[in-house]
């Protein structure tokens, strides 16, 4: 037996082995999907990630130049507008994605954690956006912060999360909350990769007749046979 095949006792080796076992490369980045992954609704998951990429990219440009830049330069205002519209698109496609996954009951087949992480992403994205609105340094920021404080203060959150403190909100907006959203998205995508895209419901008439909606013997000749539980899935 070669040295590379010897089970390792190091922490690093164990982590690597566990990671590869949970998500082997062909499962992490497959180049084929079950044939039922053929609907426009699947586009909205990947569109959510794409929106997040555009948000982060435009946000990085704004961060490079500082919080006041976009108020007095046309280029800055342009990138701020891209940032704003990418956020609007992000929430739009994410909500459609969530509704789609609800009607697909996408938590079936051991995918509960996939749903939970997706729902938490939405809930964490809301304060991420709010901290952006109150960090704008314009009238919107003044008004929204003085209104939002009452709701947050009423439940005690205002004691450590002060929306009228620009410095604190800016830190949350450009680092802490985006980092949380990205970490959750990574976890969500890895869970999707691990468990695969939820298969369709079995139709009642086919169930009654004893036919399966997932017939192993019904493949077209050009299709490829799946390799067992969790081998299916798409990023969305």
């Amino acid at each position, binding site marked *: 037996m070669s040295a590379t095949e010897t089970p390792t006792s190091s922490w690093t080796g164990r982590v690597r082995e566990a990671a590869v076992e949970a998500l082997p490369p062909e499962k992490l*980045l497959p*180049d*084929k*999907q*079950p*044939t039922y992954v*053929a609907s426009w*609704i699947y586009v909205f998951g*990947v569109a959510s*990630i*794409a929106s997040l*990429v*555009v948000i982060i990219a435009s946000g990085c440009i704004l961060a490079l130049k500082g919080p006041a830049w976009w108020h007095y330069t046309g280029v800055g205002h342009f990138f*701020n*507008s*891209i940032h*704003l*519209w990418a956020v609007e698109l992000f*929430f739009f496609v994410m909500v459609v994605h969530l509704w789609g996954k609800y009607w697909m*009951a996408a*938590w*079936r*087949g051991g995918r*509960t954690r996939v*749903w*939970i992480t997706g*729902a938490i992403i939405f809930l964490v*994205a*809301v304060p991420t*956006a709010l901290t952006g*609105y109150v960090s704008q340094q*314009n*009238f*919107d920021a*003044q*008004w929204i912060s*003085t*209104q*939002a404080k009452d709701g947050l*203060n*009423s*439940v*005690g959150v*205002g004691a450590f999360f*002060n929306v*009228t403190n*620009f*410095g*604190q909100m800016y830190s949350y907006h450009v680092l802490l909350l985006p980092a949380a959203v990205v970490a959750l998205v990574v976890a969500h995508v890895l869970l999707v990769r691990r468990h695969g895209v939820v*298969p*369709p*419901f079995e139709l009642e008439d*086919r169930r009654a007749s004893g036919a399966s*909606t997932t017939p192993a013997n*019904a*493949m077209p000749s050009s*299709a490829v046979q799946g390799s*067992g539980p969790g081998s*299916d899935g*798409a990023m969305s």
Partner: protein
Amino acid sequence: MSVRGRLRPRDDTGPWRGAYAPYDLVKELCIAIGVIALLAVLLTVLFSSPDDKPSTIAQWSREMPVNFTAAAAKELAGTSDTAGYGPPYNHNGEGQHAAFLYPQKWLGVSHPINTANDFVIDPLKTVPDNPALASAIAQFQAAPEKTQKAWSEAYAKPLEEYETALEEKKTPAKTVSLNPTTGAVTVQASGAGPVGTMMSGLLALAKSGGLDGSLLTSRQFFQTDYTKPLLFMADGGLLSERAEAQHLLGEQWGMMNETGSYPGQVWLWLYTLWYQVEPFKSSENADILVMLVMGVLSLAFICIPFIPGVRSLPRRVPVYKLIWKEHYRSQQSL
């Protein structure tokens, strides 16, 4: 069925043993990024983004000197919204509660604000070379608390009556007059002690822009905390006047909107909805009640896979037949 069994999501979903087709995830992601970026640029070119200039205390005091003076007098008297807010700013109120829940009170005062000292007296002390003002401050501070309050309220009362009359579109009493040329406010208030001198000094300081800086300056040179100037301005009428014109008030679905005709935070529609309906609309504890309702709904949203009825609705409503139309069609043809 056991409780655990009832809570466990029904799982009749077996692994897929059917056909597979080529699917390029990386290509899909790259195309999606390109499309979203293009859409964002298109929306930017078409609609840009709002950026209404912020208000300042200097602007407020110049444009609405009576309103500013009335707000300042209430800060000194301890009768403003901020003065009686309670935690996290002061101990002058318990804050909101729901049944036995007093989280605002429990978390305590984390951003202490004494409106009389922080908004009025301390800024006035920074004004140089004004013996009359210095004497007025000294007289005010030397007086017992009861007298201070009596002076402040005596001065604030005619100002409040003036503001109320304007709101109700009535002719205000002549106890308050505004010099349209100089913007000076004169208040005929008996028993106000040195408060008139102090308020005139504060108005002058505010108009010069000095109060904006004074409220921001606290412990160090670099400043990022706007809590004090924002709370002071929120106690006055300038922000709400601008907000009303921009459909941003609470009864106008407030916080989810933004200036102009932009979509704003539309994802807060459900949160904002509760403020439009009873019993929340007229409740003194509306904020905590709405936050609790949203907390419960958010938890339910996360826990949908465990909620009987909600989790099985997708099986009963045939939206899935639309989603997997192609799949079912191919099944029928077999």
